[in-house]
């Protein structure tokens, strides 16, 4: 269930170029959210809310971590908020990553600011004694974040497009080297998701998508993506943001 909740900022940390980690205190969301769900954040002076994924949760401390990149006016403003301040969100929003209750080997493939939701997912999988392999792609060295945190969950490959750090190229160049796996989870830019679903046509996979939103609750039809048969639409805010890789037309 989505509620309007007040998030109290506990810390604000610059973790990479134009990339902010914010730890937020809230009981309801920390108790109810699952990996892949997002917060629809109200930012002062803006008509529309901004969707930001849940990157981590600490149920004991009742905190929710978000990671965001400063891209435009809204995220620029959010980045000026300090510890002790608060803002309201609608959340936890959307359908997250459904993880089966069986052990196995799972591949996480993240691109840029699509990496955050995969961290909480990886943590949950690791808690269930699953094998986690991560491939994280960034444009360049200064964009890289959370490398150590992912390494703590399992084998991790970092790829930069310009080769300034880790492997050179795209996440899809590394998939063969990750070995065999049961299914994959991915979040990142659409061209990356397209390349991955094309490369892994027979593997079960869940992908998380982005679209500009109005309401964020499924009422306004702003955030749609065509289904694979081209006959209807799914709403990213409420049917998604996580979909079966073969269910939607990228």
């Amino acid at each position, binding site marked *: *269930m*989505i509620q*309007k909740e007040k998030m109290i900022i506990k810390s604000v940390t610059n973790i990479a170029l134009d990339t902010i980690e914010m730890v937020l205190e809230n009981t309801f969301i920390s108790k109810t959210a699952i990996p892949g769900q997002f917060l629809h954040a*109200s930012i002062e002076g*803006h*008509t*529309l*809310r901004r969707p930001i994924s849940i990157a981590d949760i600490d149920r004991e401390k009742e905190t929710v971590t978000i990671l965001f990149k400063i891209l435009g006016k*809204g995220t620029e403003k959010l980045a000026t908020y300090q510890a002790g301040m608060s803002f309201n969100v*609608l959340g936890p929003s959307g359908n997250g990553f459904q993880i089966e209750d069986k052990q196995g080997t799972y591949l996480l493939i993240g691109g840029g600011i699509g990496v955050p939701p995969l961290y909480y997912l990886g943590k949950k999988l690791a808690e269930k004694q699953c094998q986690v392999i991560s491939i994280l792609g960034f444009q360049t060295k200064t964009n890289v974040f959370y490398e150590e945190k992912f390494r703590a969950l399992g084998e991790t490959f970092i790829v930069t497009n310009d080769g300034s750090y880790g492997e050179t190229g795209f996440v899809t160049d590394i998939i063969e080297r990750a070995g065999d796996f049961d299914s994959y989870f991915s979040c990142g830019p659409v061209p990356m998701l397209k390349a991955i679903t094309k490369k892994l046509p027979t593997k079960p996979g869940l992908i998380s998508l982005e*679209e*500009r*939103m*109005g*309401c*964020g*609750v*499924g*009422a*306004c*039809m*702003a*955030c*749609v*993506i065509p289904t694979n048969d081209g006959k*209807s*639409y799914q709403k990213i805010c*409420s049917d998604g943001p996580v979909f079966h890789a073969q269910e939607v037309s990228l």
Partner: protein
Amino acid sequence: MTNLAVHLPGLELKNPIMPASGCFGFGREYSTFYDLSKLGAVIMKAATGTERLGNPTPRVVETASGMLNAIGLQNPGVKNIIENEVPFLAAYDTSIIANIAGSTTTEYEAVARAFNETELVHAIELNISCPNVKEGGIQFGTDPAMAATVTEIVKNASNLPVYVKLSPNVTNIVEMAKAVEAAGADGLSMINTLTGMQMHLQSRKPLIANKTGGLSGPAIKPVAIRMIYEVRQHVNIPIIGMGGVTNAEDVLEFLLAGASAVAVGTANFSNPYICPEIIDALPATLERYGFDSVEEVIGKGIIPV
């Protein structure tokens, strides 16, 4: 005790506040936030004769004090709405207003007839002003003769009161209002969105896939107030006002200019509780400005002639 009730053709409203069409779906999502019986009425998302898939994305973009949208009337079609959505809303103690759209007068007629037969809908909001579809919609809303024709056809197709939703994208709104009043409209609803456009600097392309979209939110409120004031001078049928309402003071402004009830659209996106919050704030706001009831505010703006 301040009295919030408003009596309009077909609508006995316990208060003048209702969510605007397209900003509230068919109420389901918002019913998880609060009891919809609190609302004066609910205006449903536009219904067309058959399912419409709408426009490509991006369909929305934020603007200064508002947003542009080009949803393109995505809806499951009138039959599906009557079977699956209307009964859900009918379980609440509120009035249901069906927003209807079409590409041809025949389509408008069929949709109006279908809603009439349900007996669960209290009024029709005739949408002749959607700026985001290639055919129908807006052209009915910018030509007075066509607006009158479609109004007459929809009136004849049903016994429900018809509120014609006017487009602000015209040079002479009064002419449009007079034409539909003469054609038998029971009320007016205004304003729909103003067409607009926004560019993306990196790609040099419009941000909305449809190129242009409809501007809504606080940015358009002064335009809405001006148009309602102008129309109020020349027609006698009641007006449901809308455009950028975000609080109870805004509601009073619309009432003073001549609206009899007020719809809230874009503000639902910023705050899903906006409608009940405005309803709760109305009594104190009315009192602060010296009123005991909503009805006594309607058209009471002191405007030099």
